[in-house]
Structures are given as C-alpha cells and as structure tokens.
C-alpha cells in the first residue's frame, strides 16, 4: 500500500513553494532578498522549484554593506550567472556617499543598522512592492511573532502590535499605494530543517560554512575574521584558527565557531549537538534585549 504522507522536509518545502507562488500571483514587482547566506540560498532554491520550468519571475536583491566576505560575493555572482537571474545590488557605501547614512565610528563600528536605509531606498527606487526574506521564526524572539505576509507602511515600518491575523493558507497581500510587504517563506523552518534540506537536495554551499583555517582575533568572547574593516585593539592579537561560520552576515557582525565540520553530514551532526543558538554569534542582536524588534520596526529585514 502506498503511504500518503509527506515527511517534515517535504511538508515545509510544499508550504514554502505555496508561499512563493502566492507572492508571484498577488504582487506586481516582487524581489527576493539574497545575502548569500544559507537561508536565502534555500529560499532561492525553492523559488526555482516553484516556477520551474520557467525562470524565477522576480529579481534577486542584495543589500551590500561593502564589508562582505569575498567568498560570499564570488558565490553570489556564480549562482546568478548559473541560473540566469537578474540581480539588483543596493550599496550601503553609496548611501553613505550620498549622505543618506552616517558611518558608525569606534572599534565596534558596523554597517548593520545602515542597511535599513539602503534597503528601503532600493525598494523605493525599483518600485518593489514585496521583498521576500529568508528570516525564520526560530531565529529570534521578535521574529517568532512575524507573519508570513508582513505588512509595511509607507515608511517601511513594522507594527508588531497591529499585525493582520493570518489563518489557514489564506494570505492577505492587499495594500495601498506606497505600502509594501515583506514575505518570509521559511517562517516555519528551523536551522536544522535548513541543513537537512540542503543535505537532501545536495545544494552547493559557500565554503565559509565548512571548517577552514583563517586568521582571526577574539573580542568579547566572539571570534572574528581578520579584515580591513575591523581595527584591532592594542591588546588583541591575530591567531590562525580552525573555524567555520554558522551564520553569515557581513564581516563586522559575524562571529565564527571553532569547528572541524567539513561536510554537510558533519554540520548536521554539529547543529544537533550544539547548545547555543546560531544568532548567539551575531553581534548585531546583542546590542539590547529588543535589538531585533527595534530594527524590524524601522524596516530592517
């Protein structure tokens, strides 16, 4: 007898594909936010599945802080070339040059917060009415409250206390002119689901996710990769370490973990055994207890 039952990976895939198609059907000018991190890679993979054999009916959008890992940019450009997608790049450097954003100063200066300005400007410039992001509800407590279809007012703001109820699989993407949506097709995925899916689908991943030797330094208990974007304090010293990245943001806010995992199987095993959340190595979340909620209200990813 045939077993009519979908396992959790196939169920999550079917749900995300449904969401992606719903976006293409309900909106006129969608864009898929692509950072080169694992979640956006999986989201893009699902988008290819959703519209196959057509090409994906929307461009990718990358908000480039100018502080990216070289590996991320190489991976991005190769993938875009391979699948024949259109890529829009919003540059934080340009926002700074135009005077739209001001660079932070000091040792812990980061362009993380500045991304919001560039993101909203790029959305406006390209008249994007919905930006899809790879954020997951299990990542962070403010994100646990996020809808699949998240409404933004004309200032790009999120109002967490006044969200539209979301029932069954009926998604309300209606909006007024000037407003836009953020849609999160991976809302119900966990970090483990993402890695199991990558393994199941054998998706090529950037080398940063696998263990490698790298010049690093330690600050406030976080291992950073050495780069031109971060100035060492006099007490800090460069060490060559065997590390990998669990999450990839830009170089100024992504911490590494000591690891020997250099295959997808190893990574899954490591994720299963780990006792710290992946965002534990994200410095951008540590600025205050509600750092994510505050940034999201302003229009962050």
């Amino acid at each position, binding site marked *: 007898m045939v077993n009519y039952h979908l396992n959790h990976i196939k169920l999550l895939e079917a749900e995300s594909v449904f969401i992606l198609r719903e976006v293409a059907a309900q909106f006129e000018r969608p864009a898929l936010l692509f950072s080169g991190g694992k979640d956006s890679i999986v989201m893009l993979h699902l988008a290819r599945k959703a519209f196959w*054999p057509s090409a994906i009916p929307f461009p990718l959008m990358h908000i480039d802080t100018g502080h990216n890992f070289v590996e991320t940019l190489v991976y991005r450009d190769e993938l875009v070339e391979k699948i024949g997608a259109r890529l829009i790049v919003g540059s934080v450097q340009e926002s700074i040059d135009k005077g739209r954003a001001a660079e932070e100063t000091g040792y812990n200066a980061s362009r993380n917060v500045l991304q919001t300005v560039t993101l909203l400007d790029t959305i406006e410039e390209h008249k994007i009415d919905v930006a899809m992001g790879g954020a997951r509800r299990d990542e*962070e407590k403010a994100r646990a409250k996020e809808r699949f279809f998240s409404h933004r007012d004309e200032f790009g703001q999120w109002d967490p206390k006044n969200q539209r109820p979301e029932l069954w699989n009926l998604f309300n993407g209606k909006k007024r002119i000037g407003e836009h949506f953020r849609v999160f097709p991976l809302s119900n995925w966990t970090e483990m689901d993402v890695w199991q899916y990558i393994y*199941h689908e054998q998706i090529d991943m950037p080398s940063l996710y696998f263990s490698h030797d790298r010049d690093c330094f330690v600050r406030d208990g976080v291992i950073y990769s050495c780069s031109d974007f971060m100035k060492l304090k006099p007490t800090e010293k460069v060490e060559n370490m065997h590390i990998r990245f669990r999450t990839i943001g830009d170089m100024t806010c992504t911490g590494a973990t000591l690891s020997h995992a250099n295959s997808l199987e190893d990574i899954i095993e490591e994720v299963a055994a780990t006792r710290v959340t992946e965002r534990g190595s994200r410095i951008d979340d540590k600025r205050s207890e509600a750092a994510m909620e505050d940034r999201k209200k302003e229009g962050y990813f």
Partner: protein
Amino acid sequence: MAANLKDGYLDMELLRFTTAGSVDDGKSTLIGRLLYDSKSIFEDQYNAIKQASEQRGETQVNLALLTDGLRAEREQGITIDVAYRYFATPKRKFIIADTPGHVQYTRNMVTGASTANLALILIDARKGVIEQSRRHSFIASLLKIPHLVVCINKMDLVDYSESVFDQIKKDFTNFATKLDVHDIRFIPISALNGDNVVNSSVNMPWYKDGPLLHLLETIHISSDENLVDCRFPVQYVIRPYKDEYHDYRGYAGRVASGIFKKGDKVMVLPSGFSSRIKEIDSFDGPVEEAFSPMSVTILLEDDIDISRGDMIVRENNLPNIGQDFDVMLCWMNEKKLVNGGKYAIKHTTKDARCVIKDIRYKVDIQTLHRDETDNSVGLNDIARVSIRTTQPFFFDRYKNNRITGSIILIDEATNETLGAGMII
C-alpha cells in the same frame, strides 16, 4: 548520526499543535518544560531569560519570557500575539502555536488553531473544568482540530489523586458531548515538577497511558488529511516562453485534498470542461500522483482556458458551486461587522467581493448558547452569518475540508483582515 541521516532522520512527521491559556494555569511552564526537557532551549537563550528574570526581581527563571518576544509583552507580562515555537525529538518535529487564553484574545486562539492538528487544553486540577477550558475546547472544535489532549495540571497540589482526575475527566466528557471532537485524551500532569510531561510520573502509578510527550510523538495524524475529495485550486499558471517548452502550460498549486493521478479524468471549474491529466510535474521530475498537501504543477491533455482561482476536480465528486452560503464567523477587528455590509473575500486562491445578507445568531462562547436576538458582532465575537459572493465559489463544508471550507473577510478601505469564516 550519519547513519541516522539515512535511516529516517530526514523522514519525520511534523505535528502542529496549539496551546491556549492564561498566566496562572501553567501553560508557559508546560511549554518551557517540553522545550527544556527535549533540549530545545539553548544555553544562550536560557542565560538571557535567567538574567532578565533576575533583573525583574523574580526568584525562578521565568520560562514565559521565552515565548513573549515583544517588548510590550515583556513589560506587561502578558502574551499579546500568537508565538510560534519549534522543537524536535528523534521521533517527530513540532510546531507550537502558543496563544493567550483570555476571552479578549479569542481571535489569536482562532488563528493559532486554524493550522493545528492537535490542541492542548490545560485544566487546573484544583479548579476543575472552568469557563476558560470550555472556551478553548469550543474553539478547538469550531476549528475542527482533530485531536484534543486535556492536561489536568497541578496534580501535585491535589496529592496526585486518581479520584480528582476521574471526576474532572467525567465532567469534561459530559461537556464535550456538545462538541464535535472525536479524539479526546486525558493526562494527569504536574508541569512544574515534570510529572507525566516527558517522563512517566512515579507519583501516579495508577495512570498507565504514558506521558504527554510520548502521546505527542505517537498520536496517529496521517489520516487527518482528506484524501477522498479531489480539489486542486489553481494558484499560478506556468508558461515558460522557452523554445524547449514551447507548448508548456502548467497549472501550479497545492493539492487541497484528495489524490490526483496521471491519466485521471478531471473537470475544470467554473468552465465545466473535462480533460485528462497529462502529467504531474515538478522540478525533480514528473510524479505519478499528487496528494494533499503537495505543491505540484498539473498539465492537462486539452487546451482549456484556466486561470488563478479556478479549480480542478473529479467529475464524480464535485464541490458545492454557488454564490450563497453560511459561515461561522469569528470577528477580529474593533470595527463591528455590518449587516448588509460589503467586504472583500478570499477563498482558496480566489478573490471576490461579498455582502453580508443576514446575521443569524451570535454564539456566547462561555455558555455555547445561541442568541438570535443579538446581531451586534464585534471584536472576538463568533456568529453565524449568511454571505452572498459576487461570483460562484467552489466550496465544501469546513467540517469536511479545512482548505475549501474556509474564507477570510477583508476591509475594502484599509485592507485589514477583519474576520475568519468556516463554511457550514
């Protein structure tokens, strides 16, 4: 682990369950314990809430802080919105829709219940079946959650008494005869001490049916899907415009119910044209059959004009087709429902407009009493209303089909989602 990957670690079932409760009935403690004992709370999360609890002057680590993610919720110590939590055991993956339990949050309970396979109802062993437990059970039954698990909590405070458990079980069963729920289980627990949550309780040897987590891991859910009535709402039409796919016209969508096979004779609504399934396609290659809730692309043998909002069905098993139906409506907005009012309406992949023809009665969700004289429907009210739509819908009773039996109403001026309806 590498062996696990191949031996089914990738092949787990997903169970979605909902919990409802107020601050003092131990709901947060129970969820906290499920997450903590299944090792789904990470050290940095635990340390963060420990620190926050200390800062608030609380002596115990407040596990509610795990789920109350918004600043306002933390400040006020209440759950405002539905929070989704995720955990896994080696047997299953779980999604919890954690909702506040007060009457003023009925809309959140309904939201959380809409996608759940199972509802956890918490009853304080000292208080027995109270209004709140009745309300939660009614909502679970209204939303047709197939399984109800009644956790009789705080058993430690009634000396782990079997007779207290039996009495509450009897009271609840009596009340439940008024509900449309077929699978109800009872478990005596102490969330605080962990009795019968993850491990069997040594304090209640008289209870033999295993702890809560064991039930959550093993309860049979694969028959919850409707595999009989074939319904495929067309979501998106795929036209590749590439040379190698010159005549490709694929109807993309998610199977709402039933099983579709290659070669099946089908009918397309609303046109009524018949055809056969030429192929069921996917990125990973053609599939022989598609069943709910798979997302696939269907190709037909004949060239028929089909667009989003149409539905592919089997000729010998048609849904209702019409512009008039009644729904049980849960109202979710401060602005009251207007009798005779016009709204935008969403049903499967179809968008239309509708008018409220009649407000038949309102349900008192405390007593389940129907009030035919009161037709003022405001936030969190539940009422039976008659609706007429601007175009024909292809629908089933919600009782038989949660996908083709549900609608939402939308404000045409503000675009807010105002209400959720279950077709009767």
